[in-house]
């Protein structure tokens, strides 16, 4: 019995692994293609030479990409933008999430509904009003201008409100009996129990703002305030001649490298956090 029983799962395990391998190869294809294309000599069009490497491996695409764009400056601005936004967001969504989850105040449901509606408005529709606000604050072409529209997050507030609501009230009551004020409650009960939600939110926030293009393009003009996507677009915008895949691939790799490394390092935590928060 035992031997038979253990044999069967082995066989199906093997099948499962094989199909997972296939799926992961399909998922990896774009990345591998990007890598191969970026290493292809510039003069090789797609039909020439070895289908994978062309006539040889060359770094001239990267060289071209580095000549065209001041990547290091853009990296700096992007990091400040993305993590600046995230750190403020974490504070605002915690406070707002707690308020909506546990406090009672006049018009709470109405305000919460307004907040949810805001999720549905595409950010492109707010381009002009946001611009006018930033302009009237005198912040045009600063890093503050980049960050300002994103400092609050309706999605994050919603996520944390839901997470906080799932925490049993008994815990809060126990904390209160022990003399916690609201800040201590957040510190000792709510925040530690919601780490996975925070991780999930941080991940979406980082990747969303890492990829932000139109707003940074419009609100900045100086190199020191511009982000990686704007740099990448200098390589991509070749509407008239058609795409130069090699250089686009090289630029793409330069832009996504930090995120990719970040993901590889924290892979397990990320996946766990998504599983736990029920976010897809």
């Amino acid at each position, binding site marked *: 019995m035992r031997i038979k029983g253990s044999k069967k799962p082995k066989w199906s395990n093997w099948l499962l692994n094989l199909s997972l391998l296939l799926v992961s190869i399909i998922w990896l294809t774009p990345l591998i293609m990007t890598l191969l294309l970026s290493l292809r000599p*510039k*003069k*090789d*069009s*797609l*039909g*020439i030479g070895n289908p994978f490497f062309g006539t040889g491996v060359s770094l001239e695409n990267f060289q071209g990409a580095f*000549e*065209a*764009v001041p990547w290091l400056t853009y990296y700096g601005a992007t990091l400040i933008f993305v993590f600046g936004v995230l750190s*403020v967001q974490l*504070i605002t969504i915690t*406070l707002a999430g*707690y*308020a909506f989850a546990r*406090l*009672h*105040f006049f018009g709470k449901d109405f305000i919460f509904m307004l907040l949810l509606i805001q999720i549905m408005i595409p950010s492109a529709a707010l*381009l*002009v*009003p*946001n*611009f*006018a606000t*930033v*302009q*009237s*604050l*005198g*912040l*045009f*072409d*600063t890093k*503050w201008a980049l960050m*300002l529209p994103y*400092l609050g997050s309706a999605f994050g507030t919603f996520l944390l409100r839901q997470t906080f609501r799932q925490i049993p009230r008994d815990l809060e009551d126990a904390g209160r009996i022990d003399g916690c*004020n*609201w*800040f201590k409650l957040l510190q000792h009960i709510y925040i530690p129990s919601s780490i996975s939600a925070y991780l999930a939110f941080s991940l979406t926030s980082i990747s969303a703002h890492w990829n932000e293009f*139109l707003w940074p*393009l*419009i609100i900045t*003009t100086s190199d020191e305030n511009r982000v990686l996507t*704007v740099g990448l*677009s*200098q390589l991509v*915008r*070749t*509407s*008239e*001649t*058609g*795409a*130069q895949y090699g*250089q686009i691939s090289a630029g793409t790799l330069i832009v996504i490298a930090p995120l990719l490394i970040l993901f590889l390092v924290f892979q397990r935590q990320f996946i766990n956090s998504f599983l736990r928060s029920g976010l897809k």
Partner: protein
Amino acid sequence: MKFYRYFAALTAMVLFALLVAACGDNTTTTTSAVTTAASTTNASSTTAAAKATTASASSTTAAATTTNASSTTAAATTTTVAATGQVTEITFYFPTAVEGPITKTFDGYAAEFMKANPDVKVKTVFAGGYADVLTKIQTEVKGGGTTADVAIMLSTDLYTLADNDLVVPMETFIKDAKDGDTWLKDFYPAFLANSQANGKTWGIPFQRSTPVLYYNKDIFKEAGLDPEKSPATFKEMADIAQKLTKADGSRWGIKIPSDGFPYWLYQGFAISNGQNVVGDAANKVTFNTPAALEGLKNFQSLITDYKAMPKGVIVWGDTPKDFISGNAAMIYHTTGSLTSILSQAKFSVGVGFLPAGSKGYGSPTGGGNLYIMKKSSAEKQKAAFRFIQFLTQPDRLADWTQVTGYVAPRKAAWETDTLKKLVADKPQYGVARDQLQYAQKELATHEGAQVQQILGKAVQSVITGDKDPQKALDDAQKEADKLLADYKD
């Protein structure tokens, strides 16, 4: 309980205040600088406006409407004006549409310009693709902000820009400039067609292009054709294409892309058959004329009759690659692709005019013009015009052509040693220039982007076999008429 609630609210407010303070901290110094600058700029721009009033009637309104806006908001970038009282700072927005070190090249031009003109400071700003530049400028103007003083935008955006009151005509500047008229007359008329309207010059041709026929000389030789002679007429081209097509699909005789801006290459068909799809009027198109119909039928026949072109929409960006890999023996494409095709092709590349239709050669023009923004102060506009004149000096245009592959828009540029040598070494570069005598304006009207899309869709529906040419063009004409009915001229 209540206490906690108030405390939470209070903390939130304090946090917000801190945040604002932090913002302020960063900018208080600049803000104060800006305010002082604003007051002085205010004065200078009013006097500038006053000057403009005496200059001409048309610019009076321009100056009057822009004074208050520019004096308060333009201050951010004009701190230096107030500081020294001499240097005018102008901002230049440019897009990229072709491969090449565009940003570096413009930075170089700006540095040269500033060296020669110490009283003007140019800030170059990359602003995405053509569409992004327009979005950026429109957002900035609508949002009451600072925008570019001079920018490169599509030549066909002329009516959109003029209708939205974003740009100023160049007449005053040309009159004031030394030899302004001779300078303007030196541009090719085909390029000026998309730059002038209502008797005024709204844009100055800069990065312009035109479609040409590329053909693979090696394949021509192999098939026993004269590789030095590009197909002269449509019939000749179609016959050759049919002959060079391999039944198994490994090689097509011709590929004419039909996505992205399908109306553009199609315009060549209409023009060469006797009538362009647009005339001088900006509220009228002629989509369903006999010439347009014949052109579209020719286009379609390459697929249906000659079977020399694959069925369905052909992707613009992939077409040069198909040509380079030998999958297409001939292609229609922009001259802007010449540099990259020459550097990548492992065979000898022939370039010819778009084949003639029933009424001779014909092609549209394309690309971007230099515009001066209406929102800028008169002083900045003048400086911007000097920068435009600098950019369009023959030597600089020659350099720009060499770097990018665009067709230098001035005759004098082709007399420079740089371009003479280029054409001597690679005669392919001269073809687009020679074709300009047969070129006409690109489709540009009010609501330009939408009208282009209407015609483009009509062309695509014929290519994919959804509609017959007559019906497609009739429908497109009706749709465009409806859209343009509100415009009086």
